[in-house]
């Protein structure tokens, strides 16, 4: 009915204080971090209060922003493009352009903001109990808070540089938190590994950003008046049809490599399980629910770039979906051979991240993002549950086989929450996992990636299976080890790394002067397992509740009006008209851009003036008002958008976005399709899931309870299975590859060689001249050596000196010879001259 164009001028989108000032959200924890660092130790609660308060503040603001965003969406006509709330201040300038720092708030960022703020708050509360009496309690909260600051900053980031800033800060914090108990070599190694691996991926981030910036900057500056770093700019540019195929592909691939590293995708996933060496709250916050989704977030955030760069939905296979698929399966398979409960969860996280990636790769943007959302809750819950077990029941061990079993009697709450989250994770209807994961699988199939749909389904099967195994080992059967109340110190020496490390920290608690720590740990040891304290269980309950409920935000099965998440979060693929398109060379258009956008592109001298000038919300207008002065929209757009209105879930939306180049405007999001929900499909996956659970349950009973002779030790007897088990046990030998081969070879031989080269060859070149002279005459040796030892001269000096030595005989002291030399030289010279001038 209306063209996107005319609308753009009419629509006045709602906004509000929280949306306008969302950039404050990351600032709160950042300030809190500083406070903790400087005053934390002196505070009654050792600084944790700062952290918790800041997280509450962030949470409150995020909630407010979420509310106002929803208002904004609801207030806008259905097919209007909902402008993100963008602000920017000059952060740095270069080459006459000034680059901003600010906020880019849309559905996606709002979602993640809420998730991060929420989980962080819970985890921080949880930690006050879990790390009580830890020797570096304050540091822990400092890092945790700084992490939240980094993550939130990355989420609100207005441009790539700001995003990288948050990205790297998260990496740093994960380094500090994994290595929190660095007295143990294993922990610090794990920390190093995590940082190093992600950093390796970050090469891609650097390269990709550079490539995209230089390819996009001119276009964005000209048409949108924003820099080539800006997320909005990049999205529009990607869909504008201008970018050369090579540039955008390289950029996308490079960026995706970074995502692989950060989100623990195959083949760079190996750091994530080791990262479990960190305290459990860390695992639950960073390494399951928030930080590790950063990679997924980046893909979702710059989706147009990947959409075009990877040609998503253009072909039946692309890099992202492939990596995602592989990750799902291998990670799930690995989860089977773990005895450490946290590692099971870690691999499950990897595999779930695989789902998200696969979804994004297959054009299922919304389900993937939704999965981020739901996964955060139940996975955090699971981790905290594991933590609660180790904290109260298994005496700081995470070994399911040794120290757990039959715990359901002792810790009902933990058990209940665990079960709920597990069901959610397995994607059982009507738990949240179902609505997200199943949607992903469904859409993947619907978008023509049938093979990957099958992978997804088998993944679901595996998930169900290994979670059942874990559950069984932990809560059913007979109590074993610590769970049975045995207090065996010696066994902790050679436990799985995590337990080991936790225990390391325990030891430190012992020799640390904190008496409280001492007691608390001992009574865990002495009286056997029991339920954890309220501070631990309450977060569990909350999370479990969400594990059930969060799914209904986007419950496709119940029809359109339940799909709020879709409505609020998914960016609408509408053409937004701007000046300069398609003829960007007009003086007028440029002029308008220039004056309208002093906020983002300032000629250097005025930087001072404009550096603190804020973009008005409808600074957007800059890009859309030109419509006001004529430039009749193509009528065809009307019909297109008209169809949008009538479009049900599965309507074939024909907006040019993503499919072809928009002619009179730009798109900020590609056009995506949504699979219509069918109970039949859902039922099928349900069956698969239950099958997995059942099978696994039976196996477990046979193996661990009945100790069935045929099955126990099967892997020992059967070569093939044995090999497979070994293969899994060693995580596909990838670590061996990385550490033993690559790292070793770089760190040791090559570096040594280079150093040798440096010392002997290059340094040699300096001394070389001297050395060759040295070899000529034996007697020179003494001098050179002396002088070198003496350090009198080196290199050229040495040569010179030797030459001097060679000359000395001339100075024989004999008058006659002097005379001879004198006259000889004279005679020769004279002779030459005579001959020349003859």
């Amino acid at each position: 009915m209306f063209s996107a164009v005319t609308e753009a001028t009419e629509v006045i989108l709602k906004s509000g204080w929280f949306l306008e000032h969302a950039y404050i959200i990351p600032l709160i924890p950042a300030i809190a971090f500083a406070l903790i660092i400087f005053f934390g130790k002196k505070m009654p609660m050792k600084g944790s209060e700062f952290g918790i308060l800041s997280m509450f503040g962030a949470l409150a603001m995020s909630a407010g922003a979420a509310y106002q965003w929803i208002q904004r969406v609801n207030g806008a006509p259905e097919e209007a493009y909902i402008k993100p709330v963008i602000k920017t201040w000059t952060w740095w300038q270069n080459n006459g352009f000034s680059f901003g720092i600010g906020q880019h708030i849309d559905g996606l960022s709002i979602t993640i903001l809420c998730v991060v703020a929420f989980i962080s708050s819970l985890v921080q509360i949880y930690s006050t109990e879990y790390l009580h009496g830890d020797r570096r309690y304050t540091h822990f909260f400092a890092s945790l808070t700084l992490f939240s600051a980094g993550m939130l900053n990355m989420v609100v980031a207005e441009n790539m540089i700001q995003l990288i800033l948050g990205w790297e800060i998260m990496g740093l914090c994960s380094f500090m938190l994994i290595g929190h108990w660095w007295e143990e070599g294993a922990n610090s190694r794990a920390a190093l590994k995590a940082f190093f691996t992600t950093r390796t991926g970050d090469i891609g981030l650097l390269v990709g950003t550079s490539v995209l910036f230089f390819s996009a900057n001119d276009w964005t500056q000209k048409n949108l008046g924003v820099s080539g770093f800006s997320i909005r700019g990049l999205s529009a540019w990607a869909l504008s049809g201008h970018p050369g195929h090579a540039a955008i592909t390289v950029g996308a691939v490079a960026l995706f490599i970074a995502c692989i590293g950060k989100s623990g995708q195959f083949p760079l996933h190996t750091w994530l399980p080791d990262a479990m060496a960190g305290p459990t709250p860390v695992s639950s916050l960073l390494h399951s629910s928030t930080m590790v989704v950063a990679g997924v977030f980046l893909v979702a955030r710059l989706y147009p770039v990947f959409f075009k760069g990877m040609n998503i939905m253009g072909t039946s296979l692309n890099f992202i979906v492939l990596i995602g698929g592989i990750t799902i399966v291998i990670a799930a398979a690995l989860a089977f051979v773990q005895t450490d409960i946290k590692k099971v969860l870690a691999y499950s996280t990897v595999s779930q991240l695989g789902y998200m990636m696969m979804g994004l790769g297959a054009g299922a943007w919304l389900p993937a993002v939704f999965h981020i959302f739901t996964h955060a809750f139940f996975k955090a819950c699971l981790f905290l549950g594991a933590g609660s077990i180790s904290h109260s029941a298994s005496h700081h061990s995470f070994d399911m086989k040794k120290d757990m079993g039959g715990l359901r009697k002792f810790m009902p709450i933990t058990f209940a929450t665990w079960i709920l989250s597990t069901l959610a994770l397995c994607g059982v209807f009507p738990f949240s996992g179902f609505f997200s994961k199943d949607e992903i699988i469904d859409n993947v199939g619907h978008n023509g990636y049938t093979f990957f749909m099958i992978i997804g389904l088998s993944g679901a099967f595996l998930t169900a299976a290994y979670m059942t195994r874990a559950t069984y080992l932990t809560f059913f059967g007979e109590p074993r080890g610590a769970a049975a109340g045995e207090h065996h110190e010696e066994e902790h020496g050679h436990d799985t790394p995590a337990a080991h490390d936790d225990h390391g920290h325990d030891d430190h608690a012992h020799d640390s002067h904190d008496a409280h720590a001492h007691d608390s740990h001992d009574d865990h040891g002495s009286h056997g397992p029991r339920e954890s304290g309220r501070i631990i269980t309450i977060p569990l309950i909350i999370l479990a509740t969400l594990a059930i409920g969060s799914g209904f935000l986007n419950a496709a099965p119940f029809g359109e009006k339940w799909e709020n998440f879709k409505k609020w979060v998914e960016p609408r693929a509408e053409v937004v008209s701007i000046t300069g398109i398609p003829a960007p060379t007009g003086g007028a258009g440029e002029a308008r851009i220039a004056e309208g956008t002093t906020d983002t592109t300032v000629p250097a001298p005025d930087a001072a003036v404009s550096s603190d000038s804020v973009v008005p919300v409808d600074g957007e207008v800059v890009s859309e008002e030109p419509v006001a002065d004529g430039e009749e929209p193509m009528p065809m757009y009307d019909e297109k958008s008209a169809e949008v209105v009538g479009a049900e879930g599965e309507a074939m939306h024909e907006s040019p976005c993503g499919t072809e180049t928009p002619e009179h405007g730009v798109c900020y999001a590609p056009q995506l399709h949504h699979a219509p929900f069918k109970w039949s499909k859902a039922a099928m996956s349900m069956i698969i899931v239950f099958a997995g659970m059942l099978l696994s349950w039976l196996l477990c009973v046979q193996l661990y309870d009945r100790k069935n002779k045929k099955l126990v030790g099967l892997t020992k007897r059967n070569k093939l299975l044995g090999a497979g088990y070994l293969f899994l046990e060693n995580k596909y030998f990838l670590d061996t590859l990385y550490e033993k081969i690559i790292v070793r070879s770089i760190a040791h031989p090559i570096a040594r060689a280079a150093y040798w080269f440096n010392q002997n060859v290059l340094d040699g070149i300096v001394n070389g001249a001297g050395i060759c002279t040295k070899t000529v005459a034996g007697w020179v040796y003494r001098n050179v050596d002396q002088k070198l030892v003496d350090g009198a001269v080196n290199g050229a000096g040495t040569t010179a000196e030797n030459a001097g030595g060679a000359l000395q005989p001339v100075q024989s002291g004999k008058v006659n010879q002097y005379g001879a030399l004198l006259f000889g030289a004279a005679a020769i010279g004279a002779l030459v001259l005579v001959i020349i001038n003859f």
Partner: protein
Amino acid sequence: MEVLSDHNWVLTVGTFLPLVGVLIMLFIPKADEALSKAVAIGTATATLAVGVYTLTQFNFDKAGEMQFVARHDWISVIKSTYYIGLDGISLPLYFLSMVITLLVMIYSWNHVPSPGNAKAFFILMLVLQTGMAGTFIARDLVLFFVFFELVLLPMYFMIGVWGGENRQYASLKFFLYTMFGSALMLVAFLALFWKTGGASFAIPDLIAHANAMIPKNTQIWIFAGMFVGFAVKVPMFPFHTWLPDAHTQAPTQGSVILAAILLKLGTYGFVRIAIPILPLAAKAWAPWIGLLAVIGIIYGALGCLAQTDMKRLIAFSSVAHMGYVMLGISTLTSFGMNAAMFGMVAHGLITGMLFFVAGSVKERYHTLEIKRLSGMLVQMPKLGWILGFCAMASLGLPGLAGFWGEFPAIMSAYQPAAGLNVQVFRIFMVIAAVGTVLAAGYLLWLYQRTAFGEPTAEFAAGHGHDEDIHDVNKFEWMAWTPLLIAIVVFGVYPQLMFKILDPAVGVTLKAFGG
């Protein structure tokens, strides 16, 4: 000669004030160390005050132009004038040199390395200060040369007298290397002078005429001369072999000044003299400079990984970092040049800081053998965290100063100046990006092995080292806090420096249309 400001005296005072202090100190009896220290620090403070005043008087909106310009006859016969000025490129380094000198002196209050003789030590630092500041404000090649050489002797003595076991070899090596370089540099300057008609040594005049008057081939040769002179100072692979020795042997103060300021003289020379005066030659040389730069990045990193000595490792890391700076310069784009300038300052702050820490570690443990150090965080948490902080800054963590020198430099290589081989530079970019990982590698590896874990047996509590092993003391705090703050501030709000760099760089690169 246009005068942008009537504060022409500011620079002169700021540069030569230290010498006044030296004169006063000459009359202080050697025995009275406290007094000579006080006088020296007082002088440095006064100098810094002048520097601050300069900062306040500096017209930031005209950062691209020369300010406080003063030009007087000096050696009229050879057409050389006392011609000084300050613009956005010089200002940060000029100011940094003053700050670093003061901080180093404060640090030296109770860290005068053996064989003592504080008087001489402080005098040398003051003389150094004059040389460094002068180099950054000189607008006349002869004047530049004089200041450039002026820093040699003091540093030679600093290393040679107050250095480590192998100090004499190191100091002489440092000296001879630089002498060779600067000799060729001088010849190049003279050639420049005559090829432009023997009219003037003033850099602006040369910029105005040289490119037009000198044919390309000649330019390339002249550039070669300067290249050697500056590259030795930077130091660029393969002229870097003096650096590890010098750094390892030098006393802490020497290392700091060397890393923070002296290395910048070389890069500054490229930015200020070689490239703007001889654009054609610069274009011809750029790929090779870029190549040497990336070799330096990788090579320095590998060198680091092979080190067993903490200080030597940091020294090699300088090679790598200056590699980034040179890479940025070699792109001949203002993007890269800005990054390079920022990188210089950042590297000055960070690596200077690292050397401070290394010095304090040495003082406490009497060794820098990485494998003998461990669990620093247990015994000296503060020092340990500071080391970690610097390591993070040094590996280019966003939010800290290092990032803004490193990342844009790498980026800039994606799109070098028109006429340069894009493919080659993009390869450079990737290699440089790999370098960042290596950087993370060696720094974290260093940090993990020195700071984490339990102290080694020989240094564990109750093994006689307890009295030495104490946490950061107040002089160290005084000396370090400003640096640490600066690292954060510039990291969080880089515009502070880019704002003044960018216009100046733009002016410098006029010849390249950007």
